[in-house]
């Protein structure tokens, strides 16, 4: 049997040549991975199987396992592997894992740490915790059930936490007679979904945790499967540190080592890149530069290898470095490659996962830990919440336990950071309740909000009122919102023609036109859509500062984003124009053929089809395009505009 041979070789080596075995073991790399799924998917059984087949279970544990299996197991007289990995007493009674448990095993090629986390939605925070340190996620599906809501949730969370290697383990293949068609259908379903949330690649493996198929070795029961066994893949897949090592050098200073006046070392764990004596470095946020003098480590006692000063060090190592110049540098600072320093900012857009029973409230101050910085932070704006089951965006003003939201966050002083996708060590943060000191949230930085960069407001003598007065008008922003095909652009265009004829100074910012220039770098991901609206809002604001009447035509489906723009302007200048067209009517018109594509599944996240449109609740002006022609609607808007003011 193929399974047995792998173990036997290792065992023989241990018995015959322990030094050779130690030499081999010493050079193994470490892969951390997470398994996602519920007890029903056979997750614990799968992990138990990996431990059992790699001989990580001792005889006394096995004896107690056999006894437990008979007492509370679910496999009759057979061994219930799930009992091996279900830890705390309460969990064993309930038959579910409710925390994150870490398991260890090794093969000839690698050592592994498995984070075993619960699958249910109420344990989202536990899964996020386990995923935060994982290089790879094994997403389990039951071959009889296929891709479920929880599969989508687990995949979304794994992707959100930046896991780049996804394995879809289609489990319980024995219960579908190892049917290739069943497997292919599930994989095809999953591929469609995965592409939609940005998972570029994944490996699908047909397995049976109970029978051991395709786990340690390829199974003869699935001759049609030409990929690797699960363990083969785990042994050879790339590590995140390989990626980080190639980035510019960055290290957050943890502690300043000052045994005497002649020595000042900066201790920390290298977050990315490589460093050697003589390398020019820059300290952030001060921006001061120096060069690395030494990388100091303790000399070996008994002549062990690798000690003494290091010739260089790489991402993942904990080091102490000294600099050639006496410059200010303390805990919280980041030492970085001089020519590629990280950004420094005090306002960010970030995704936040809430982990406490008490909900997150924008405006409330929290303690925040980012890198080695302890600061104070406030959520300044919750842009939208994400439904972890459907990935839909929802407007929201707070965040409950296990909720996930994209927020703006502001810190009480500037910190060096990198976007989370580049480096979790300098782009991930935790939020802490300042009274209980509990960790209440975790966040991942997308980018710094530009206005946070140290730019001071320049006072000008010609005020915005003066600009408007010169034009004989009051500045306004007419924000047209409505479904695709509702007639926003058509009506806005007619309105502007009327304003122009009246001698008003106006400008129409059209969605498509803006994307040709200002926003040409933005796509249609959630983040990009929000940024699109933010930029349009900022540009419109500048134009109203110049005294113009600005018209914008964007679907802008979320109240939160429209609210964000409204908040940028003085009261009464923002006029929300709701172009109210029922979905059936807009879809029937389908001027650009987009609804047809969305219905055919060729367009994802299309508003009204698979992404919601949140109607304005108190729009200043509402036009119904079923009852009115475009011309009548434009007429009505102009009338409202000047009668109202």
């Amino acid at each position, binding site marked *: 049997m193929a399974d047995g041979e792998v173990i036997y070789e290792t065992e023989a080596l241990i018995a015959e040549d322990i030094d050779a075995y130690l030499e081999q*073991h010493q050079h*193994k790399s470490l892969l951390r991975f997470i398994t996602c799924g519920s007890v029903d998917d056979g997750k614990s059984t799968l992990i138990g199987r990996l431990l059992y087949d790699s001989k990580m279970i*001792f005889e006394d544990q096995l004896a107690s396992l056999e006894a437990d299996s008979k007492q509370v197991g679910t496999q009759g007289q057979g061994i219930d592997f799930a009992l091996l990995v279900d*830890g705390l007493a309460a969990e064993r009674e309930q038959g579910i894992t409710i925390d994150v448990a870490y398991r260890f095993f090794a093969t000839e090629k690698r050592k592994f740490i498995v984070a075993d986390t619960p699958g249910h939605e109420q344990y989202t925070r536990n899964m996020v915790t386990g995923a935060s340190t994982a290089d790879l996620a094994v997403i389990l599906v039951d071959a009889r059930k296929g891709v479920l809501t929880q599969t989508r949730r687990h995949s979304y969370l794994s992707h959100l936490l930046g896991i780049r290697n996804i394995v879809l383990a289609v489990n319980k293949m024995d219960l579908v007679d190892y049917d290739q068609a069943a497997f292919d259908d599930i994989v095809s379903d999953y591929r469609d979904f995965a592409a939609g949330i940005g998972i570029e690649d994944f490996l699908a493996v047909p397995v049976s945790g109970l029978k051991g198929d395709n786990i340690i070795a390829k199974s003869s029961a699935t001759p049609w499967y030409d990929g690797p066994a699960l363990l083969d893949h785990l042994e050879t897949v790339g590590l995140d540190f390989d990626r980080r090592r190639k980035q510019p050098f960055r290290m957050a200073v943890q502690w300043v*080592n000052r045994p005497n006046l002649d020595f000042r070392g900066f201790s920390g764990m290298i977050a990315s890149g490589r460093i050697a004596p003589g390398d020019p470095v820059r300290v952030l946020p001060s921006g001061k530069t120096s060069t690395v003098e030494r990388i100091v480590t303790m000399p070996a006692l008994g002549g062990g290898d690798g000690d003494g000063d290091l010739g260089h060090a790489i991402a993942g190592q904990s080091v102490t470095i000294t600099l050639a110049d006496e410059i200010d540098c303390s805990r919280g600072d980041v030492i970085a490659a001089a020519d590629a320093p990280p950004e420094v900012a005090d306002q960010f857009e970030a995704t936040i996962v809430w982990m406490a029973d008490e909900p997150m409230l924008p405006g409330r101050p929290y303690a925040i830990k980012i890198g080695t910085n302890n600061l104070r932070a406030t959520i300044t704006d919750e842009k939208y919440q994400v439904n972890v089951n459907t990935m839909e965006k929802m407007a929201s003003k707070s965040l409950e336990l296990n909720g996930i939201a994209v927020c703006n966050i502001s810190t009480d002083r500037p910190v060096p950071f990198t976007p989370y996708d580049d480096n979790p060590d300098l782009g991930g943060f*935790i939020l802490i309740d300042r009274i209980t000191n509990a960790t209440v949230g975790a966040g991942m930085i997308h980018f710094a909000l530009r206005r946070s960069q140290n730019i001071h407001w320049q006072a000008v003598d010609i005020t915005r009122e003066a600009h408007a007065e010169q034009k004989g008008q009051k500045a306004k922003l007419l924000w047209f919102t409505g479904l695709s095909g509702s007639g926003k652009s058509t009506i806005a265009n007619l309105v502007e023609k009327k304003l122009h004829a009246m001698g008003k100074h106006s400008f129409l910012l059209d969605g498509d036109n803006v994307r040709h220039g200002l926003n040409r770098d933005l796509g249609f991901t959630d983040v990009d859509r929000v940024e699109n609206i933010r930029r349009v809002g900022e540009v419109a604001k500048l134009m109203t500062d110049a005294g113009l009447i600005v018209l914008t035509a964007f679907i802008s489906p979320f109240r939160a984003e429209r609210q964000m723009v409204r908040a940028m302007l003085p009261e009464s200048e923002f006029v929300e124009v709701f172009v109210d067209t029922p979905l059936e009517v807009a879809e029937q018109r389908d001027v650009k053929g987009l609804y047809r594509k969305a219905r055919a599944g060729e367009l994802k996240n299309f508003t009204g089809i698979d992404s919601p449109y949140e109607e304005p609740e108190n729009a200043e002006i509402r036009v119904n395009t079923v009852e009115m022609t475009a011309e009548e609607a434009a007429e009505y808007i102009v009338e409202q505009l000047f009668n109202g003011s």
Partner: protein
Amino acid sequence: MTADAAPAPERLTHLERLEAEAIHIMREVVAEAENPVMMYSVGKDSAVMLHLAKKAFYPSPPPFPLLHVDTTWKFQAMYALREKAAKDAGMELIVHRNPEAEEKGINPFDHGSLHTDLWKTEGLKQALTAHGFDAAFGGARRDEEKARAKERVFSFRSANHGWDPKNQRPELWSLYNARKNKGESVRVFPLSNWTELDIWQYIHLNGIEIVPLYFSARRPTVERDGMILMVDDDRFRFEDGEEAVERSIRFRTLGCYPLTGAVESEATTLPEIIQEMLLTTTSEREGRAIDHDQAASMEKKKREGYF
């Protein structure tokens, strides 16, 4: 640049990553806690933890004292190494013996589990409270048994040192929340992700000094209830018909000598010990009498404040 600069790797091995993680954890504690201490049990895990502490803060000595919660019943060889290790590291050694246990003459022969409760569990609480330590490093590993697989690296204790498994903080990335309210303390486990094999291999690679009892030698022993006990001093109580027999033995874990089972072995070098460990079929904690209860016993002990 130094002429004899050691070559550094282009990819870290699992031991290098574990070492870096442990050092990172220790530095975080020193940066954020007011009064940290390192629990030092003189065992192999403590030896590795102490070595990592020296490495983390070099050229400074580790900026905290060592604390040994003594029961007066440890092996003589452990007391000898304890003094030497503290001196070599340039660290203060605090030895705490529960005065109540001392006064009552609590011992493992007469008092069963009360021995562990009073000397170790109570003794530890007393020492932490008396010195006002707000962070204590411990050498526990997640691979030791199931209840520990879920233990946090930073494990929070209430003002009366209680542990609530439902109320532990989520730990993400390498970000540890060390904030606590007055009176609360944190136990920190830098070796959480190490396995028994990792410990042994690290000792081997770094030439770390350990108690000689881990190596096999001919020692006076008694076999009792399936356990081989070592007659370490003249306080050992023989039962009827028992007498000391020389056996070639060594220990996989070390504790109070009347409670610690030895294994018969010929392993006299680290590679031989590792070889035996890898080929053996019983888990490490078998040798400790306190765990011979039900599966949930460790969880219960932790709730009460046992390390």
